[in-house]
């Protein structure tokens, strides 16, 4: 089973040299810590940064330099600031190569719900709807089941949708899956996790073809 950093490490293996990447809040943010050595990846923050770097050193934080999660960050050499309209031109215009975000539910058709729990949580969608509607490649980083032990990989989402038919890949603490026309295709098992464990935790249609390899991270 993977911990949060393990999930981030597995997603980092999907990065390619020259990629522009937008990372969502939570586990996705950790992916930045595991960019393979020698690979050049540029992080986009939708509030207006391309070339976002790590947190500043203590005492060097700048109120004018924050990420989309409102955390103080730094800009790397060669980076650029821009406004929100330009930022979403990058996103809707499919100039961002990879989007990694969290989810509350994903359906076997690639629908995603991650912005609202009616009557309980009203925070808003932020940039998530723009991102999922346009990204060429979306990887969801999430736990396989919610806190109540219910599967988050479903035949259909039950929560209000963020986008439809958009999720391409999912990495959970149990597995690496691809969303295909026929359902969730199991690509890899997390270390120490059996195919049966994954079957039990997946409510949506799971496709298992041949031997499923264990992840190497």
């Amino acid at each position: 089973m993977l911990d949060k950093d393990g999930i981030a490490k597995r997603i980092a293996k999907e990065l390619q040299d020259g990629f522009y990447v937008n990372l969502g809040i939570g586990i996705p943010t950790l992916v930045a810590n595991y960019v393979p050595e020698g690979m050049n990846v540029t992080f986009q923050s939708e509030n207006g940064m391309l070339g976002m770097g790590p947190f500043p050193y203590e005492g060097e934080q700048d109120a004018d330099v924050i990420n989309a999660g409102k955390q103080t960050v730094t800009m790397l050499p060669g980076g650029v600031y821009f406004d929100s309209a330009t930022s979403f031109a990058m996103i809707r215009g499919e100039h961002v190569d990879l989007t990694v975000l969290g989810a509350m539910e994903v359906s076997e058709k690639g629908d995603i719900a991650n912005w609202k729990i009616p009557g309980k949580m009203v925070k808003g969608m932020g940039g998530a709807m723009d991102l999922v509607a346009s990204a060429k490649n979306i990887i969801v980083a999430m736990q396989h089941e919610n806190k109540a032990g219910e599967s988050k990989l479903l035949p259909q989402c039950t929560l209000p949708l963020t986008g439809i038919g958009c999720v391409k890949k999912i990495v959970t603490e149990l597995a690496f899956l691809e969303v295909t026309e026929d359902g969730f295709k199991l690509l890899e098992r997390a270390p120490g996790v059996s195919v049966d464990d994954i079957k039990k935790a997946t409510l949506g249609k799971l496709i298992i073809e041949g031997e499923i390899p264990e992840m190497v991270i």
Partner: protein
Amino acid sequence: MKKVYQNAEEATHDITDNMTIILGGFGLCGLPENSIAALVNKGVKGLTCISNNAGVDDFGLGLLLKNHQIKKMIASYVGENAEFERQLLNGELDVELIPQGTLAERCRASAAGIPAFFTPAGFGTEVAIGKETREFDGKMYIMERRFHADFAIVKAWKGDTNGNLIYRAATRNFNLPMAGAGKITIAEVEELVPAGELDPDQIHTPGIFVKRIFQGAKYEKRIEKITVRKREI
């Protein structure tokens, strides 16, 4: 026509009850904090505020919320504000949540004289309810409209007496597309200089979009989440 105003009170003097106001900033970053303070002091009520966020409990638009001066909030993300959630769940506040890119483009369209545009964001979700949808090149889009706001209030780093603006770092955010998005745009700046002192090659917002400009009395520039790393010794 007079463009330079002495302070926030003077620049916002004709903002009255029930008006619609567009306000710049992302979270607390690049927030027109002097203008917000003036609106709080003035006590105008029934406002419709269009801004990416709703501030935190004791700063930014949160100050107007606490005073019950906002009737309706149009935003993309309103977490970080317990008072907001309380008023919303109690039915004291009307809220329209819209995708962040759609919000930015609706502001840009408002400033640019574009009545409507098509975006894929929100297609197939509750955001699309009641909106025209159309297929272009095999993909589905929803039609979004411009805003009609009485005022737009933005914050820049430097400005000149012609209203030309330069933003610093990530404070461009919504300030840039919101400049010109209201019938009257007010810009507050950290430093106001005489026209001619800013390099025309470095200006982000041409002064034609700005009707009023003033230098803010003071900037707290509060940070919402301070995240740092330790120096390796």
